[in-house]
């Protein structure tokens, strides 16, 4: 168990700056998820922590020790790859023990560690098999086992579940969370899947263009996004955005956009709002309450039943808003509905620097 501390990190690949002046502190025993669209630099960051990519500038410390130029094998890390990367000519046991055999660990100790990892991951009956004789889920378990036997301080995961089908992915996701609770080792996990990020992380790091956009618990990143990018990246269906202006009038603050007129007085502004400021209003679909006591009216344009909930698309003054309705009610297209929005739970962003107000 170790913390990881990254200072002023710069990484170039093929002449392109992928990461520039990045600072990140990974707390001991936490499950940190690096989340972002493809090409945002999250995998590059993980690979440079592992020592598989040379950094251009800055430092990486693991467990308080400077590892910027250490060999990957000496960083006390274990890593799991998207493509499993199992050694095809070796058995499951051989795959898991390869690193220990190289390191000259005594035979009895190797056996003990492999046995323990196999137990945790339910791999005991498969130890003599070759990777080609395993299913996708089993292969990824072996890859996790290979990282576990190193008894590393930090475990790195590079999109480990992306090659699995939806059902297996959910299953292994749960197992990973249980594994983290059991081992309490520091885990850094790269994914582009927001569901994985929300369910697994103790903290999420949202990245874009090689820069960290926001760091926080899943709840805070989801409900209080720092900027428009984070707000738009998380959530399915995505956050509803309305472009408009603020109208400040003594104690009242109103949001106006064409015919839209919303009272946002009880929104927790970080900065004092200015009159006539151009802003983007963000409303999560589940914050739109459809009900007869609602103060706004719109027309249903589309209903998407999802089994346990419905997504209702509402035409409101020329804007299309998605609303998530938990109780299955009979909404039809072209119905007129009343709805309300709780201003305390919405997000407002400056239209120019896209930062949260």
């Amino acid at each position: 168990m170790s913390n990881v501390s990254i200072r002023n990190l710069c990484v170039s690949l093929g002449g392109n700056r992928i990461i520039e002046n990045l600072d990140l502190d990974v707390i001991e025993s936490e499950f940190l998820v690096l989340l972002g669209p493809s090409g945002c630099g999250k995998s590059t960051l993980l690979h440079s922590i592992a020592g598989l990519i040379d950094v251009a500038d800055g430092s990486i410390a693991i467990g308080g020790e400077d590892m910027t130029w250490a060999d990957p094998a000496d960083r006390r890390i274990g890593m799991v790859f998207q493509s499993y990367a199992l050694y095809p000519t070796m058995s499951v046991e051989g795959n898991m023990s390869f690193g220990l055999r190289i390191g000259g660990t005594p035979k009895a100790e190797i056996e003990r560690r492999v046995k323990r990892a196999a137990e945790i991951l339910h791999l005991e009956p498969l130890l003599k098999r070759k990777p080609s004789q395993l299913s996708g889920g089993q292969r990824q378990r072996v890859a996790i086992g290979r990282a576990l036997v190193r008894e590393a301080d930090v475990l790195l995961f590079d999109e480990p579940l992306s090659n699995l089908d939806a059902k297996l992915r959910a299953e292994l996701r749960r197992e990973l969370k249980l594994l983290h609770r059991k081992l309490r080792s520091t885990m850094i996990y790269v994914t582009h899947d927001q569901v994985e990020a929300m369910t697994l992380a103790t903290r999420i790091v949202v990245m874009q263009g090689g820069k960290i956009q926001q760091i926080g618990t899943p709840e805070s990143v989801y409900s209080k996004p720092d900027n428009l990018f984070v707000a738009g990246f998380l959530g399915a269906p995505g956050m509803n955005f309305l472009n408009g202006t603020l109208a400040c009038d003594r104690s009242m603050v109103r949001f106006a956009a064409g015919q839209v007129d919303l009272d946002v007085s009880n929104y927790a502004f970080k900065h004092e709002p200015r009159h006539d400021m151009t802003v983007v209003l963000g409303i999560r679909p589940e914050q739109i309450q459809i009900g007869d006591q609602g103060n706004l009216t719109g027309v249903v344009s589309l209903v998407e039943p999802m089994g346990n909930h419905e997504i209702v698309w509402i035409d409101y003054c020329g804007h299309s808003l998605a609303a998530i309705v938990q109780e299955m009610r009979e909404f039809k297209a072209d119905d007129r509905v009343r709805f309300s929005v709780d201003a305390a739970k919405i997000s407002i962003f400056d239209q120019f620097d896209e930062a949260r107000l």
Partner: protein
Amino acid sequence: MNATVTRARRNTRLDPARIGIYAFLVSAAAFFLLPLYIMLVTSVKPMDEIRLGNIFALPLSFTMEPWQTAWSSACTGVDCEGIRGGFWNSLAIVAPSTVLSILIGALNGYALSFWRARGAGLLFGILMMGAFIPVQVMIYPLVQILAALHLFSSLPGIILIHVIFGMPVMTLLFRNYYASIPEELFKAARIDGGGFFRIFLQLMLPMSTPIIIVAAIMQVTGIWNDYILGLVFAGRENLPMTVQLNNVINTTTGVRLYNVNMAATILTSLVPLSIYLVSGRWFVRGIAAGAVKG
């Protein structure tokens, strides 16, 4: 009543197009097989029969004597010991040359694909250029170099030459093969603490069986069929079978023993021929691997 569906039959009738295809294939096969047929038939005829001039006729009196003569008592210049000496010489040249060139090619390909040292691309380009320069251009400088190293006209000398000339193609073959292996595999091994040689020997080489077979086929047939390098660099004691065959056929004293010449030629080509027959599938795969990817 259930509607019955008439099953469509595959068309197996001989239509004119099909007959045309077969006619072409048969004539193409005959074109290549006829010389072999003449060689085989001639090699088992006594000289009296050959003098009659019916080269397509089957032998009237069958004899294996020309084969024995070719193997053990035909005259190669001054000596009359057949070409069996050449067979063993060729074997002594081919075996170590094949093993060494494959090992070096695999090591080069591995280093170029995974370690990507500074200037690796340039180095590979230069190596590839070597594959396109005709051998004849390099013979004189190589003779000088080997003479300076005291390796000229020796077994180690000719092996070294074959290893050098095999390197570009072997490197290309292995580099392309390793390029198809996911890089994450290599990275996983790096995290497991594998060094340059350990990853090569314990991970990459065991995964390379298919391409090693292809490389072995290419090298064995290539080196066995070599004539000019063996003639120049092997020295009198180590002349390969191809050079001795040439000597048998070009011996000018007495009558030309066509039957012995045919038998000697077939004997010499037996090794590559049997390799082609046994491993044709692998050979085609190797050529495709070398040609398509690049």
